[in-house]
C-alpha cells in the first residue's frame, strides 16, 4: 500500500501555534495536505516496513560578514527550513544535510551553521560540499560532522554518502594560500575552477561497500554534485560520473540524490533515478539560461518557476523524501511558491513531476 502525499499532514495543527512564534508569519498561511485518520491507519495495517520519510536540507551557504555578523538572508533560509522540518508529521526518520553549509569553509561559518542545525530535532547525516571543503580540505567539517564518506542501513534501504566534490591534486596545490584556493572554487562560473570527482580511492571503497549488499536491496546514494554530466562550466558535473554509475548498475533500485545545483532537476539513466534538492540560500539559473554555452539539462526535468527576486525566499526551500518500496518521491517545500512533488512512476520507470510533467506553464520557461 503506497502512502499518498495528498493524504499526509505536513504540519500538525497543534504545532502551528508554536510554529508561528518561530517562523515568519507567512508560513501559517501555507496550505498543506489534510490529515485523514483512516488513510494513516490503512498504511499502518499494510505494514510495509520499507515506507518511511526523511527530510533533506541543503546548500545553506552560511556567510560571515565579520565577527559574529552573518548574511541575514542565508541565515533565515536555514533557520526556516529547520523550524519547518521540526514540524513534519509524521516525523521524518532522519535528516540529511546536502552540503555547502558554509560559503568559504571558515570555522566561524561551519560553527554558526552547525548551531542553527542543532535546533533540528532529528538524527542528521551530512554531505560535504565544495564550499565546506576547499579551505582546509574538510578538516573543520570532519571535526563537526564526522567522516567524509560512509554508508548506513535503514529499514531495508542501503544509504551511501559520497564526497563527490574532490578534484585534481595538482589543482589543489597550485594556489598561494588556502583561502585563495577556497575563493577560486567558490565561484560557480569561475573558469579557473576545476571539475568535481569522486576519485579512485573512494570508488574503491564504494565497490567494497556495495559488494556486501544484496542486489535486491534498494540503494540511495547522496552526493553534493550530480553523479551525471549536465554542465561542466558550473560544475553541474562529476568527472567520473559514469564510473560511479557503473558500480550502481547491478542493483535493482537505485536513486541518487544531490545538492549543489540549487534547483529542481531529475533524470533517469538506466536503472538509476536522479533527484536534486533545493537550496535554502538562493536559487541558481538553469544552465540553458547561459546563451554562450551548451549544456544538457535532462529533458525529463520540468524546471521550477522562474524566481521572483522581490520575494527573498522564492525558489529556495527544503524537501522531505518519501521512500516507498525503495523508490523515492521528493516533496519540495518551496517557500513563497507552489510546492512540487517529483515521484518515481513505476509504470514509466522514471521520476516525474506529479502535476506538471506533461503540462508545463509559462513560468517554468527559462531563458
Amino acid at each position, binding site marked *: 500500500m503506497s502512502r499518498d502525499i495528498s493524504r499526509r499532514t505536513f504540519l500538525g495543527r497543534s504545532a502551528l501555534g508554536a510554529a508561528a512564534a518561530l517562523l515568519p508569519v507567512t508560513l501559517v498561511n501555507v496550505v498543506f495536505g489534510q490529515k485523514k485518520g483512516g488513510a494513516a491507519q490503512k498504511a499502518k495495517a499494510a505494514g510495509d516496513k520499507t515506507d518511511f520519510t526523511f527530510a533533506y536540507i541543503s546548500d545553506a551557504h552560511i*556567510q560571515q560578514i565579520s565577527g559574529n555578523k552573518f*548574511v541575514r538572508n542565508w541565515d533565515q533560509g536555514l533557520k526556516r527550513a529547520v523550524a519547518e522540518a521540526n514540524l513534519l508529521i509524521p516525523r521524518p526518520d532522519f535528516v540529511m544535510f546536502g552540503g555547502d553549509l558554509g560559503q568559504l569553509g571558515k570555522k566561524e561559518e561551519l560553527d554558526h551553521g552547525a548551531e542553527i542545525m542543532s535546533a533540528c530535532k532529528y538524527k542528521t547525516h551530512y554531505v560535504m560540499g565544495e564550499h565546506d571543503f576547499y579551505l582546509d580540505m574538510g578538516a573543520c567539517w570532519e571535526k563537526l560532522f564526522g567522516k567524509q564518506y560512509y554508508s548506513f542501513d535503514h529499514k531495508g534501504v542501503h544509504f551511501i554518502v559520497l564526497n563527490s566534490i574532490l578534484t585534481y591534486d595538482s589543482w589543489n596545490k597550485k594556489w598561494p594560500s588556502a583561502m585563495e584556493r577556497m575563493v577560486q572554487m567558490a565561484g560557480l*562560473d569561475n573558469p579557473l575552477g576545476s571539475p568535481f570527482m569522486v576519485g579512485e580511492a573512494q570508488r574503491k571503497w564504494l565497490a567494497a561497500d556495495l559488494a556486501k549488499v544484496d542486489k535486491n536491496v534498494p540503494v540511495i546514494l547522496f552526493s553534493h554534485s550530480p553523479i551525471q554530466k549536465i554542465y561542466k562550466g558550473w560544475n553541474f558535473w562529476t568527472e567520473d560520473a559514469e564510473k560511479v554509475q557503473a558500480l550502481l548498475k547491478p542493483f535493482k533500485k537505485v536513486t541518487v540524490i544531490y545538492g549543489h545545483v540549487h534547483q529542481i532537476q531529475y533524470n533517469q539513466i538506466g536503472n538509476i533515478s536522479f533527484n536534486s534538492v533545493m537550496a535554502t540560500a538562493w536559487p541558481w539559473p538553469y544552465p540553458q*539560461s547561459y546563451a*554562450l*554555452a551548451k549544456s544538457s539539462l535532462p529533458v525529463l526535468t520540468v524546471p521550477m518557476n522562474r524566481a*521572483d527576486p*522581490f520575494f527573498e525566499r522564492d525558489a529556495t526551500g527544503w524537501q522531505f523524501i518519501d521512500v516507498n518500496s525503495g523508490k523515492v518521491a521528493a516533496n519540495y517545500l518551496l517557500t513563497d511558491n507552489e510546492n512540487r512533488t517529483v515521484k518515481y512512476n513505476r509504470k514509466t520507470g522514471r521520476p516525474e513531476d506529479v502535476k506538471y510533467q506533461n503540462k508545463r506553464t509559462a513560468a517554468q520557461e527559462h531563458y
Partner: protein
Amino acid sequence: MTRNSIIISGVMLLVFGFIYADTFTKEDVIRWQKEFDAAAKYGRQLWENSASFKLGTNNVACAQCHPNATNTHPETYPKFQKQLGRVVSLAEMVNWCIINPLEGKPLKLDSKEMVALLAYIHSERRGVKLAPGKH
C-alpha cells in the same frame, strides 16, 4: 588674422571636420572594442568581487545568484517590472539588487561602475535577440 582668413579657416574646418567625422580606421575599431572590453572586464570584477569594490555591505556578490550574468535578461529591458508597477531600465534593476540582496547604496546611473556592470551583463548575452518588454 583677417576677418576673411577666419572665415576661410572656419570653412576649411567644416569641410575637413566632415571628412574626418565619417572616417575611421581598423585601428580605431580595435581601440574602441578594447575600450568596451575593458569596461566589461571591470564589470566582471565588480560582479565577482562585489564586496572588495564595496558595491554592497554584506559580502554578497552579484555572481553568487547570477553566474555568467544569467537570469538578468538584458535583452528584455526596458520592460514593465510588475513588482515596481512601471517600465524600468536594466540599470534600475542592477541598483535594486545592490540595495536589496547586497544591502548597499545605489550607483549613479552614469558612474563608471554602473556602465561596467551593464557592459559585462550585455557581453555575456551576445547574440540573443532583442525582446524589449518580454517577461
